[in-house]
């Protein structure tokens, strides 16, 4: 973005801080718009995927083909809805919650590496930054639950907070072997470590740098991938971990008392988060903006490859949502603390041994 703006004639005359400000706002606006559009597409895709799995059609009316303009109708509906707030609700908290949820998701977009020149901010602690900002969502969830003055919302919020906090541990521990391997938290560098043929992808063990020990790193990184994927489902409250917003028990959990634009913001935040975790999975495990076949990399623009891989993972998440039942909250906790965390710790330890052996 800096280079783009630097080329413009007016910009060169502005003082440094103004230039940075405009560059930052530009990035922010582009990201915000692209998130909004992406979320609209996701909501349409979710309904279509759900429909075809359930042997029905889904949205068909609005729009020229298969209800593609349905999200626009939804957006208009959200904008025009009356803003109802529950009596006895803690107004400041209740109003703050959707903003926090959305902000937590939106902040992560800054470091997502869409392409070599398409990263908002090339942070050296990119991965760590993402884990940190995604925790803001927890504060939002609890504010929503408490501020709603509704026992069911409180249940959902408490469950959601417990779940998100707990699953951040296997989430980050699962990625640690990759970080050990690459030696950096910078997302761009993690991707560049996977250039070349797709055997270099971390999901397949990155044979390029491991050589014949690739079989062991394959096992280790595969474990990481699957545990990361499962934990990411829990992070974004998707089935089979969608107990905080489960419809059949809690009437929508912490979303219950929200309507109109506030609810739209929470939905926006959730779908944005879904894309973020898919994007991180693609970055860390599935080759980022490299397509795995060097010839294609020269012709197809990098962001297209990155986004299409992320969209595929988003599709897998939606597929799982409509196939699996949901776990009970104590089973969820049991899976996290007694199954996933020991496995990730053992994985980290073993990969560390492998690394030492190779060095």
């Amino acid at each position: 973005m800096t280079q783009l703006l630097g080329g413009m004639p007016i910009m060169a005359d502005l003082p440094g801080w103004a230039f940075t400000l405009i560059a930052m706002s530009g990035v922010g606006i582009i990201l915000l718009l692209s998130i909004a559009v992406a979320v609209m597409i996701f909501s349409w895709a979710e309904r279509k995927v759900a429909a075809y799995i359930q042997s029905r059609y889904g949205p068909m009316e609005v729009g020229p083909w298969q209800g593609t303009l349905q999200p626009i109708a939804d957006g208009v509906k959200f904008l025009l809805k009356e803003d109802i707030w529950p009596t006895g609700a803690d107004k400041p908290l209740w109003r703050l919650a959707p903003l926090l949820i959305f902000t937590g998701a939106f902040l992560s977009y800054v470091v997502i590496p869409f392409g070599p020149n398409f990263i908002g901010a090339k942070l050296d602690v990119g991965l760590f930054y993402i884990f940190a900002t995604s925790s803001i969502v927890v504060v939002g969830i609890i504010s929503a639950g408490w501020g709603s003055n509704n026992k069911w919302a409180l249940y959902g919020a408490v469950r959601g907070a417990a779940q998100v906090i707990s699953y951040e541990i296997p989430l980050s521990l699962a990625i640690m072997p990759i970080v050990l391997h690459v030696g950096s938290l910078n997302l761009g560098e993690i991707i560049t470590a996977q250039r070349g043929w797709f055997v270099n992808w971390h999901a397949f063990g990155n044979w390029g740098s491991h050589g014949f020990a690739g079989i062991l790193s394959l096992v280790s990184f595969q474990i990481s991938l699957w545990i990361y994927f499962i934990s990411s489902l829990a992070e974004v409250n998707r089935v089979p971990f969608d107990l905080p917003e489960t419809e059949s028990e809690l009437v929508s959990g912490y979303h219950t008392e929200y309507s109109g634009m506030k609810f739209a913001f929470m939905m926006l935040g959730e779908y944005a988060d879904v894309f973020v975790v898919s994007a991180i999975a693609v970055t860390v495990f599935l080759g980022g903006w490299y397509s795995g076949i060097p010839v294609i990399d020269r012709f197809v623009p990098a962001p297209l490859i990155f986004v299409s891989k992320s969209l595929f993972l988003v599709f897998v998440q939606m597929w799982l949502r409509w196939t699996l039942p949901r776990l009970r909250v104590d089973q969820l906790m049991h899976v996290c603390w007694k199954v996933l965390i020991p496995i990730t710790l053992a994985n980290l330890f073993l990969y560390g041994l492998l690394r030492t052996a190779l060095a």
Partner: protein
Amino acid sequence: MNDTSAPLRHLPATREGDAAKPIKSELLHINMGPQHPSTHGVLRLFITTDGEVVHNVTPYIGYLHRCAEKIAEGNSYHQYIVYTDRMDYLAAMNCNWGYCLAVEELLRAGGMEFEIPEYAEYIRVIIGELNRIASHLIAFGTYGLDIGAMTPFFHALREREAILNIFEKVCGARLMYSYYDIGGVKWDLPDDALEEIKIFLDLFPDKLKEYDELLTGNKIFVERTANVGVVDAATCQDYGCTGPVLRGAGVSWDLRRNDTYSIYDRFDFDIPVGKGLVGTVGDCWDRYWVRMQEMEQSSRIIQQAVERLPARGECMAEMPKNLKAAPGELYTRTESPKGELGFYIVSDGGPVPFRCKTRSPAFHNLHVIVKAGQGQMISDLCATIGSLDLVLGEIDR
């Protein structure tokens, strides 16, 4: 309606021993109100929980009470058939059958001699078993919804559509049929209905396998339902639970076999009984599994009935226009998909029953949640309620 602001008089607001602990904790009184996605109708559950663990469940019913029993005392026997549809609206044919059978038995006990044509009896069995399948399909679908799997519901409804289309061909209605009449059935089966029944029987076993793949063996589903909501056989007998709840607890008791009515003794079918295949005997999974097996057995019965269907004949016995039952009282019961559906009819010789009480299976099945719900988590409570397969129309009448 009910005073919800005051706590129930016989429940303490805090646990004993709370005063001694340094942190003050209270039990949470929470209301799973009449409008709730998971309570299968307008059922209100007043739950007292300690965090997620339920200490007490008190069901409040009566939101769908439509005074059916008082209405029975003002309407003739024929006029009341319509009201029996509305009780268990998901298995309306079986409710009709139960009532018509009760009136027929009362007439017979009073000395009236008539014989229901065999053709009509076969039609009754076919249609009744089809409705059993439809009712169990809804039980299966909504149970998936309660547990969180939203897809089996749509697949179940797809099959139920086929059955409802058959019913529409037979009697013109999709939900409230009033097809059975005292002495037989109202109209004959049309030809294309019989064809559709055969087509349905062909494709149904594959669908059952599909449901098993989707839900029955699914590890998450098993985790949610095995060892959850265990109701053992003694509790079932004590609380008066019947139907899949009792059979899921391991007791082989089915009125079609143990207290045979109509022509059920001519058919060859098994009575599935819960064996605790993946958990304890009498848990939610067992009740669910019993229903899945019953669907298979029902299609077996329909297959046999369709093969042995006698030549087309009368579908209704000769009945007087103004039906008067001789004085007497009788309790007759049938096996509806939910359990033992009984009608206790008192007659004093007139055209109108003096008293007509419905023994609703779901009413007594719901009672067991007071015991089974204690000590569970809220999610388990939803799973248990779903496994009891309640229909509020029947509970409230």
